Each structure stands twice: as C-alpha cells, then as structure tokens.
C-alpha cells in the first residue's frame, strides 16, 4: 500500500540544487592563480565579481551578465520554504555555474527538483519488480515507502545526507557531484566564508581580493564605503574605493587631492577653509576672475581661528584691500602686525639687522632705517657711556664722538655734572667746563686755540 502523509516522512517537495563540478575546480584553480599573481596585480583595477541574487527560477543561464570568470553563489529558495512561512530555513545557496556555455549542460530541471513520495499514482511500466534504490541497489518491499527524487528512487533510510547519513531536516537537501547533503554539511563542505566576518556567505557573494565576502562586508578600507556595486581598486593589498585610491596615490606622490573634484592637484593647491582645491574651482570674491594658486584666503575676522567666513581673492584684489604687507618678506600680514620704521612687519620678521633674531615685543633701537636689538645696537653704534662703560638705558648725551648717560655727563677735569645747556670746551675730545678751562695754563690754551682754529672750540651738546 502506498501511504500518503505518514508521520515522520513529510511529504514535501524538496529543492534540489546541483553544481557543475568543473566549475568548482576552475574556481579553485583561479584562486591559486590569483594568489600567485597577487603582487603583479597590486593596485590594478578590479571589479568585484558578484553573483545575482535572483531566484534560480528567474535566472537566465544563458545570460552573459556574469561574464566574469568564476563561480557564483546564487541563492535559491527551496520549495519547502515557500510552503512553511515562519519556520522556514534561511535562504539557501545552491552552487551553480555562471559560465553560461559550460552551464548549458545543466538544465533548469536539474537545478530544481521536486521529490515526491511515490504513491498510488505510479502508473505505466513502473512496477516494484524493476525498481531499485539508487543508493543500495536493493529492491523495495511492497508497502514500503519509496522516495522518488527526480526519477530516482530510494529507500527512506537510504535517502540521507552523504556526509552525516542522517535524514534531511525538513527534507531539504543540496546535491553536488551526484551526492546529496543536508544544509549544514553542505555549508561546511562547500559554502564560502566571508573574508571579514567569517560567516558563511549566503545569497550574493562578492569575490574579490582572493576571498569571498558578504556584500555588506566588502568595504573600502579607508572610508568603509560598500564596494560591491561601485567597483574597487587594489592598492597595496587594500581594497579602496576610487576616491580613496586617488587620494592615497596622490599622498604617495606628495600631491594633494582636490576636495571638490577629488582629482589630483598637479600644480600648487589652493587652500581654502582648511581644505585644498584646484584653484580653478573658485572665482575671486571681488573681481570674479577665475583663481590661480596665487589667490589669497582672507580672514574676515583676523585673529579668529574659525574660517567659515573666509573668502578668496585674486592676488591683485587682495593687495588692494589694504592688508598690511610685511616689510621683510613682502607678503601680507594676516596675524599680528608690528609697525615700526614706518613699515609693517610680521612679528617673526621684525628682527635685529645684525643677529636677525625677532624682537618679539622686546625693545628695539633704530638707526638709519634699520632696527637692532639692544646688544647689537650698542655694539655697533657704541652707545656705551664713556664714564660707566655700560649700555645707556635712558636718554643719551652724544658729543665729542662719545656718549654719556645723562647723569654721567660731567667735566672731565673736575667731575662736575653738566647738562645740555652747559657750555663746555673740548680737549682731546673730552669735555672741559669753562671754569676748568680757564685754569688751563695760558700756553696750553694758546696751543689748543691754534689747533681749533679751523673748528669752533666751543661745542654744545
């Protein structure tokens, strides 16, 4: 008797998928080749090989879309899952070939088989006598349940996973190289693992960088953008999106990437609001001329670090804007301005003419249009007091090729203090007050007078 719906042997149509053996082989060989060619292919352009996500029933085997050479995992929905909604197993992949020509030997029917329990409906020349189990080759007892899968017949105890010899859970099996596997073993044996998360890849498989990936796991290593549909570029063992690769390449060449068009900036970049650009993306804020790299970013609020308000001007307009120009480097001063010697200076460019160290707010001394630090001013221009031989801090008396602190200016004979109003005589370029000079012997005064005939003998400070 043919029983129908016996408990324990669910009467369910089973999906059967098959995989072309030669394709798996080819894929493995291809992987090996990829690994060998790894170095050569560095930074070459790649497109990820991707499989379609469509159900096999909708899959066109002669379609040339998957022209990339390698196997693709496609998911196909087992028929069982269409029957049981909530408890259905996850979408199961089936190995198929993407090479249309080679896969042509596969038929749709091969990939999708229904398994029936043969019931009373067996008709025609089908009789128990010429039916044999596909596994053990033995015949069938009358009333014995017979599994019919795609025309092949099995004892129920023979219709088991080729790996674990257990019945197929829910009747779902996967066929490969003529053998049938339960879902678990099929995955363990044949399903690809994601190169990132290590999980089985079910559904669409991205083959790239000598590994398989979930589409959501295959991302640009720099910006984490999903690469499955964008394509990628291998750069030193990394998969990068086109933008990141261009940037990495430019950095390697010491060049900048335009923040706007993401192209490499071959000439001088234009810096604007903290980013670099091709100058030609901008126009002068004043005369609207297309900018070149001479353009200047003008801080609308000088001294503030925020640069959102900055504007770009061509050099010509910029120089007309009244921005002070440094007297040393001839460049505009956008930070602190030092005004001295009738010019403006960058703080760091206002330096001693002798030692070239910036004054940085320290006192400077001016002489003939040049500025000097205290030390070098006195070293060069000798403003050491003749009496104390120290640098003269305050006001200076200058006379007779010498200098004095105001309080050290005195008659060289009697040491009495003199001021700028005191009349004094000169002897050997030393100041002599009138009182002392009058005490000089007459013959000396006569000689001194003679010597000074050409020049006035009285000098005032």
């Amino acid at each position: 008797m043919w029983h129908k719906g016996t408990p324990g042997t669910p009467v369910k149509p089973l999906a059967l998928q098959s995989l072309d053996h030669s394709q798996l082989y080819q894929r493995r060989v291809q992987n090996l080749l990829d690994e060998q060619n790894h170095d050569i292919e560095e930074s070459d352009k790649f497109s990820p090989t991707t499989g379609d996500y469509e159900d096999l029933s909708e899959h066109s085997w002669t379609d040339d879309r998957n022209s990339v050479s390698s196997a693709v995992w496609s998911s196909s929905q087992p028929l069982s899952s269409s029957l049981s909604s909530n408890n259905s197993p996850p979408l199961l992949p089936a190995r198929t070939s993407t090479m249309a020509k080679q896969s042509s030997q596969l038929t749709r029917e091969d990939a999708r088989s229904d398994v029936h329990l043969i019931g009373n409906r067996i008709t025609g020349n089908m009789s128990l006598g010429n039916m044999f189990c596909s596994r053990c080759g033995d015949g069938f007892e009358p009333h014995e349940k017979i599994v019919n899968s795609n025309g092949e017949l099995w004892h129920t105890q023979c219709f088991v996973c080729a790996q674990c010899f257990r019945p197929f859970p829910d009747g779902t099996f996967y066929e490969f190289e003529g053998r049938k596997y339960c879902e678990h073993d099929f995955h363990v044996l044949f399903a690809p693992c994601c190169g990132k998360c290590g999980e089985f890849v079910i559904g669409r498989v991205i083959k790239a960088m000598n590994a398989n990936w979930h589409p959501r796991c295959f991302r640009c290593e720099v910006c984490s953008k999903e690469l499955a549909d964008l394509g990628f570029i291998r750069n030193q063992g990394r998969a990068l999106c086109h933008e990141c690769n261009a940037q990495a390449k430019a950095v390697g060449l010491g060049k900048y990437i335009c923040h706007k068009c993401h192209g490499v900036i071959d000439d001088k970049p234009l810096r604007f609001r903290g980013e670099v650009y091709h100058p030609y993306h901008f126009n002068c804020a004043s005369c609207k001329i297309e900018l070149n790299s001479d353009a200047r970013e003008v801080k609308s609020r000088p001294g503030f670090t925020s640069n959102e308000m900055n504007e770009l001007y061509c050099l010509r307009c910029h120089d007309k804007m009244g921005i002070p120009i440094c007297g040393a480097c001839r460049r505009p001063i956008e930070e602190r301005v030092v005004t001295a010697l009738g010019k403006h200076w960058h703080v760091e460019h206002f330096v001693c003419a002798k030692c070239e160290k910036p004054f940085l707010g320290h006192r400077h001394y001016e002489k003939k249009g040049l500025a000097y630090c205290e030390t070098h001013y006195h070293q060069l221009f000798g403003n050491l007091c003749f009496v104390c031989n120290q640098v003269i801090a305050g006001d200076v008396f200058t006379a007779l090729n010498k200098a004095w602190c105001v309080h050290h200016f005195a008659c060289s004979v009697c040491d009495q203090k003199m001021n700028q109003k005191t009349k004094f005589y000169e002897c050997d370029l030393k100041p002599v007050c009138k009182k002392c000079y009058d005490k000089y012997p007459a013959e000396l005064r006569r000689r001194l007078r003679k010597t000074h005939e050409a020049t006035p003998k009285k000098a005032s400070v």
Partner: protein
Amino acid sequence: MNQAPVSCIPNSKMSKAKKVLDEARSTGNPELDLMEKGISSFEEMPGLLNMANITRLTLSHNKIVDVPPGLANLVNLEILTLFNNYIEELPVSLSSMPKLRILNLGMNRLNALPRGFGAFPVLEVLDLTYNNLNEESFPANFFILETLRALYLGDNDFEFIPPEIGQLKNLQILVLRDNDLIELPKEIGDLTRLRELHIQGNRLTVLPPEIGQLDLVGNKSVLKMDYNPWVAPIADQLQVGISHVIDYIRSETYRYLFSRHVSVRGPPPPKYIDKTNKLSRNRRNL
C-alpha cells in the same frame, strides 16, 4: 705760582676741606668733591683715607705734591681725579686699588710712573695729559693693562712709543697730541678697537702702513694728525682729507715709500714745540 710750604696751611682752607668730609660722612655720600680747595697735602683731609665707602674722589685744581700710599685703602674708589696738582711721584700701592676705573693724573709734574703701574685690575681710563713723561717713564709691565680703553698721553715728552702698546687690546682712544714723537710703532696696527687716535703736534714724517688696518675713517672714528712734518705724499693727501691719507697708506705705493724711508732715515726733525714754559716744568725750574 706761589708754592706755600705744607706746614703753613691757613685754617680756613683746612676747615673748608674738613667741612666737605664731615658732610659726606654724615650723609653717606660716596662721591667727594674737593676741587679748588687749596689743598697741598692729604693731611689736610683728616680721616679721608678711612672713608672706605667712597666711590669718587675729585681733587682737581689743588696743590697736592705727595700722594700717600694709604690712598689705596679706599677700596671702593672707582674714579680718582687729581688733575692740576703738583704731583711728582705716585705710590706703588695705587695700582692695587681693586675698583679704580678712571684715573685722571693730568696736569701734574710726573716724570715717571711707579713700578707695577700696569697692575690695576680694572682700570679703563688713564689720563696722564700734561706731565713730563717719556718712553723711559713707563715701568716694564705697564702695557698689561688689558682693561684700558682710553689712554691720554697728550702734552708729554715722548719721542717713541714702546711697541708693547700693541698689547692694549681694548684700547679705543689713544691721545699722543703734542709730544716729541719721531715715529710710531707698527704695533699700533694691532689695536683693533682703536677709534680715536690723536697724533697732532709731533715730529712724525711717516705712518707705519699697519695703521691702515685700523678703522679710523668711519663716522665713529677720529684721526687727528695735523702739525707734523709729514712726507710730501702724506701731507698732500692730508690736504684732501683723512680718508685719503688712510687710502694712501693702504696702497702698495706707500708701502714701498715707507720701507725706503725707513732704510734711509735721516736725522729726526727738530722739536718745534717750546715746552719750557709748561706748567708741569715749573717745579723743576725753581
């Protein structure tokens, strides 16, 4: 000039100096002005040599003959002015004064300097103008005064300057006006910091070419060289200006002229300054 004996000091003069000293002692003023007080001896300034705090002592226009060795007790003295006195000799101890920077001995009657006079530790300005000094007056080690920046030797009797003058590395001012100099040592060219050189009123005919190494033509430099019997080329350049003289003595032409001049040197030019009436001579002439 009336030379009163030391013993006959009028009381008024003595009290004048004393008053200044008393005042300085009471106020603690470290600067002593005692010029033109008729002082002829340090004895007229009782207690002065114990005032170790004073930094300046001015005794110009007095009649001091002897400087006591005890003056060196004033260890804080920085400026000592003895201009226009009758000093003939100085104590050896003077050069040991540890802080003396400016020493003015101008217009005295010094014929010689004491031995060890170069030992001043910090002397910067030494004025010996208008004395009776000559090349024999310098003690052997005089030119070790490394700190000296001004040396005034005008109105003295030098005919030569010792070549050791080149050791005064810090010398900026050298005054040799109105001496009897016949020649200058080439070592003056070693005084790299010299910016004032007064050699007017001497008997110089040529300058050592080494002077050309010095910066004496800058706007901070002075070279006074009039009133000398210069050889014609120098005299001609001097007519045009000091810078022309310097340019000339830097030339090869001048080097040649100089070497020839030195090798066939004739008798020195006569002294042409009559110094017999010099005040510094008076004592000797008495």
